[in-house]
């Protein structure tokens, strides 16, 4: 049931049904992120305690992570470019690179979480320096700041995870030679999602870490 029967001269152009669905999903998802980010910002504006940037969160480490994620956006573009030129090897290679990038991103985030949840004397010192006294670890109930951090980064992390799974599915199909220069809609839709996840991360990084 994949035939498209839209009226001619449709003002919404010739995007495929799947692509249109993904765009709608991106709008919905963007608004969810907006709700979570603005929630934190509103509390902060309302006078909730907020440490200075870099006092608690490790900016250089996450900056590297951000760079990594932007690189995976690049490899995703290369994958689409490859399939448009019927370059099956290039498609598979770039998809694998993207998965790898997403995986490393998640690992670094997991390391960051572990470091916060396990706690250490060094962390306790850092926290008390930032104004959070008597805390040996940094968990959602530590403060509103901590909760906002976890809620947004965890929501994004789940997106990266679903993205990695999504890429794995497309990769499996690509290995069986499902895609070609005539049929690459799925790859393009996957790209839309992945770029969205990257773009949102840049916002999250800015709002949660840098400001």
């Amino acid at each position: 049931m994949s035939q498209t029967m839209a009226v001619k001269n449709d003002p919404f152009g010739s995007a495929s049904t799947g692509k249109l669905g993904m765009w709608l999903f991106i709008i919905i998802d963007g608004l969810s992120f907006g709700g979570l980010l603005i929630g934190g910002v509103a509390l902060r504006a309302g006078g909730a305690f907020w440490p200075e940037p870099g006092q608690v969160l490790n900016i250089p480490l996450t900056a590297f992570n951000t760079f990594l994620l932007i690189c995976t956006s690049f490899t995703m573009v290369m994958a689409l470019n490859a399939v448009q030129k019927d370059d099956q090897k290039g498609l598979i290679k770039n998809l694998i690179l993207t998965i790898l990038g997403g995986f490393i991103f998640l690992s670094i985030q997991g390391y960051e979480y572990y470091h916060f949840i396990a706690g250490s004397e060094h962390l306790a010192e850092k926290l008390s320096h930032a104004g959070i006294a008597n805390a040996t670890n940094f968990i959602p109930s530590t403060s509103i700041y901590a909760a906002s951090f976890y809620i947004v980064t965890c929501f994004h992390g789940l997106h990266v995870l679903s993205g990695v799974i999504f890429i794995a599915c497309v990769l499996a199909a690509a290995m069986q030679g499902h895609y070609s220069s005539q049929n690459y809609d799925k790859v393009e839709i996957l790209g839309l999602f992945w770029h969205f996840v990257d773009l949102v991360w840049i916002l999250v990084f800015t709002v949660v870490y840098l400001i």
Partner: protein
Amino acid sequence: MAEHKQSFITKYIFSTDHKMIGRQFLWFGLFWLFWGGLQAMLIRWQLAFSGQAVPIVGKLLWPASDGIITPDIYNQIFTMHGTIMIFWAITPLLTGAFGNFCIPLQIGAPDMAFPKLNMLSFWTFFLSGVVLFISHFLPDGPASAGWTSYPPLSTPVGGIPGQGQTLWVLSLTLMGTAVLMGAINYVTTVIRYRAPGMGYFKMPLTVWGMWLSAMLNALFVPIIAAGLVFLLLENVFGTQFFVAGNKATIEGGDPLLYQHVFWIFGHPEVYILILPVWGIVSDLLSTFSRKPAFGYKVTATCMCIITGLSGIVWGHHMYTTGMSPLLGKAFMFLTLLISIPSSIFFLNWLGTMWRGALRFTVPMLFTMSVVFVFGLGGLTGLYLATVTSDIYLHDSMFVVGHFHYTLAASVLMASFAAIYYWFPKMFGRKLNSLLGKIHFWLTFVSLNVVFFNMMALGYAGQHRRLFDPYVFDFIKPLQPMNFKITMWAFLLGVAQVLLVINIIWTLLKGKKASKNPWEAGTLEWTLDYPIPHGNFKETPTVYTGPHEYSNPLLKDRDWISQSEPLEGAS
């Protein structure tokens, strides 16, 4: 399209056919309507016979209190009544059942754009219902912070004990996910799957209503999802986003943040529920007045304008939260602006009926009653939109009456209209008209007595959600009125049995309906029952608008299907 073989499971349970999913949503919604309706009866019992044991079911439900409704139980009942009716009864009925059933058929599509997503949407919705249902059997009972679940009542700090609130949040999140899947499907289907010739201004207004409502869902359900995630963390991980208390003196959590998030979604939500109603009413009025819908394009445009405005008026639910007077006035102005497009299409409805050849069938009776109750509901909304009068009426029974006039009355009556109208196409049989008419008159009269008197109660000062209002001396004289409302509410409840009987009897023994029993012009009536998976044998080409009734160019009948060219038209 050839009919392919399907097993029982893929045909009736995990079906990807939009018509089957629509029917599933219909039964699902009707079940919850019944459940929420029972809770309404219990609320009315308490308000009329405060402190007396509920007969028959009381001892079964609450053996601990000997069948008497305690304050805790009362809070749980009105919370669940509101939650269930809004999210699990009328959402599945109109958007779920008739959105699914009508959109592809009325635009000439073989199915929804994403049939599997559609199936997933129903089953996620079903799962959310299961979670909510289970919450009734928790040791501390279900959520009891009101359907709005304002903090601090809904948070562990200073809130109500028990896991009911957590399950409430979980089920609502699941429900939101299901609704979003539906929204993606509806919007995409209308944009991509219209048959050749079916321009946007040739779509039936039902489709317009469903489409706009899906867009609002897509835009605003994510906001409440964010709020629900916050609330979930409050309940599960002990965060304090919404707590203004001792810890808040350092932390600065804000209960108002939840109210904002809730109403940013909550106000569009009422339009999400009412937009399909406007569409259905516009179409049905035209069909049964045997006249084109008066000002079709204007009605569609007005619905679009209201869709836009509905997103920027949420503050009118929060006038009493100490919001800045300037902000209050801005929200008041924007809210009152909505009355302009609303009045325009309301006038269009009257214009449609004006000098038409009215056919008083059961769906028409229900549709006309929507015009009446929606008019009343809309007018009383003005008092709540105006800051000065709202300060007095806020959180009173007036709000309850107004809200029930717009949602319980308008949406419910339109759901009934839709059930009576599309039943022949959904199940091949026409519901009994005499039973339907008795059902209509009982429902219409009792519903008006109940909700109109509620507004009077509120005007006299009775607050809503009071467990025992008569502890206040000034409410004591209102007891007889409450008693009267309760009696009529019971009649309203009992009257619904007629619908149940009618549906069961018709499904078993009802008269087989002809292909186009209402002589309507929209595309679904060109198909024979049962409609095969894939709907149209050949994709129809659309020539005329959806309401070409009594066109002078028509010779032997007064209607023409949208897929027939009009002879002699230029």
